[in-house]
């Protein structure tokens, strides 16, 4: 992964939808970067003021499904509750992912992300940790 930071995300070219590469030294950090990357793609900005938390417990069926479910939860909360999150405490206990999202009501959403797809989705283990390309339907 060259000179890149140990965890991060970058948008890749895709004709119609949006594709993002995400990497991190471990799975919790990979998920955190995926969430921050999706926030960036969607152009989320949060209202200042009182912070809110949301807890998510996800049984881990497979890593890719966990990633899709994790990001889909954030899209659902943005659309239905108008909530965005910028801080993530994520841990894996056995076969359960436990995530605490911390955020606030959304002030702005610039891009409507319809869904997180499984298209060519594969979380790969590399010497530096994990890397995955995610395609979003927009």
């Amino acid at each position, binding site marked *: 992964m060259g000179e890149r930071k140990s965890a991060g995300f970058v*948008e890749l*070219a*895709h*004709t*119609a*939808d*949006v594709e993002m590469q995400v990497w991190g030294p471990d799975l919790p950090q990979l998920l955190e970067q995926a969430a921050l990357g999706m926030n960036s793609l*969607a*152009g989320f900005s949060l209202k200042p003021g009182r912070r809110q938390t949301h807890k998510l417990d996800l049984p881990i*069926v*497979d890593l*890719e*499904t966990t990633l*899709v*479910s994790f990001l*889909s939860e954030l899209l*659902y909360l*943005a*659309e*239905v509750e*108008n909530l965005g999150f910028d801080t993530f405490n994520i841990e894996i206990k056995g076969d359960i992912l436990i995530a605490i999202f911390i955020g606030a009501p*959304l002030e702005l*959403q*610039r*891009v*409507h992300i*319809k*869904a*997180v*797809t*499984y*298209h*060519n*989705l594969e979380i790969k283990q590399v010497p530096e940790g994990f890397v995955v390309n995610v*395609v979003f*339907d*927009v």
Partner: protein
Amino acid sequence: MISIKDLTKINQFEWEIPKSFRQDMQVPVRIFATRQLLDDISGDKSLEQAVNSATLSGLAGPVVVMPDMHQGYGFPIGAVAATRYPDGVVSPGGIGYDINCGVRLLGSQIEYESVRQHIGDLATAINQSCPSGVGTKGHIRLSGKELDQLCRQGSGWALKRGYATQSDLQRTEEGGCLEGAQPEKVSQRAKQRGLSQIGTLGAGNHFIEVDVVDHVFDREAAQAMGLQEGNLAVLIHCGSRGFGHQICTDYVKEFQLAVKRYGMKLADRELVCAPMDSPEGSAYLGAMRSAANYAFANRQVLAHFARKAFEQVLAGKVPNWHLHQIYDIAHNMGKLETHTINGEKVRVCVHRKGATRAFGPGFEGLPAEYKPIGQPVLVPGSMGTASWVLVGTQESMERSYGSCCHGAGRMMSRSKAKKLVRGDELRNKLEAQGIQIRAGSMAGLAEEAPQAYKDVDEVVETVVGAGIARKVAKIVPVAVIKG
């Protein structure tokens, strides 16, 4: 990467990737395109995705790809695949997240020249009455019980609520209602998203346009539709909103397990599928049809509010400000249809992802006035360019499962479009061409710049040249409303 040398040229407008190209292909891929349109997609993954689609279980004939094809996820956009009913598979990713995204065209007796000075007011009124943009809620708030009724009745729900006429329903694909919707197969999450979004446009490439009929190519067909050169028309493009997105999300996830259960091997996890006669496949069909009916009702309510906007601006200024329905078609849908494949009548589920139905003359489901001419096919161009009204042909029934293209087709990523085009400059340029723009976001406008799309005229010349559609009329925009 598949290149043009891997394709067999059948004629100027038709190419094939033979079944022998890859060992896991069940059927060949048939592509309707000119050499130029194939060059436009070189470098993207459309053809690989088409080959992947040709590996699904239970395909009854070739996977067909339309000239507006481009890279998507799972299936390419522009793909049509027919799987045998009931033991073939249904694939949610082969229909798309925006279930029954589609296009509606309304016509009028309003001469553009007589209302030219009011087009800005019309654009503003439509923009105010048809909520658009990310996360927008509509004027109508449904109860859970009403949402279930809407899922079962589609445009019929809108008729009962006073948002539709009987003629609107007759001039909608399937009468605006797919039989077999099962709202009980829809998750609470999807329902939560659907409660407040009926009558909303959304964002991305969804739009409402006010157009002028620029040129009529087929007078008989145009007359049947009520399209006259110089008159205004309205084009509405949107789908099932968060309701459909959530249903597809839910079932793509659930089918990940179904694939293992039924021992299927997939080229891409987005192609997950289940046999239609399995509990999973049957549940998805019931939920997908609910979303399809939601989308029909959504476009119907938007049409109602567009009519209100026309009344608000033009009442007393022109003798007749009514907008009559010409047709409403889906371009992300899975439907049970009977087609003749290799000389045999076969009941199939036709997956159309970024492709429209295009049934030829005589089809029983058409209103009487359209039976002699064939089903109207609506092909929106990119923003600021022409859109087309076509009709299906007998050849489309024989060669493309009664299907045709759905638009111009993207060829440039959104991020590149934003780098090359400034939204405010684009708006100024379009307004200088006489096109009023109402857009919620200048960045969103830049993403939809005309240069990000293929030439819609070439796409149309291809389907006409291939014989799967006939030209009826070309319309050009005078106002564009976007989220």
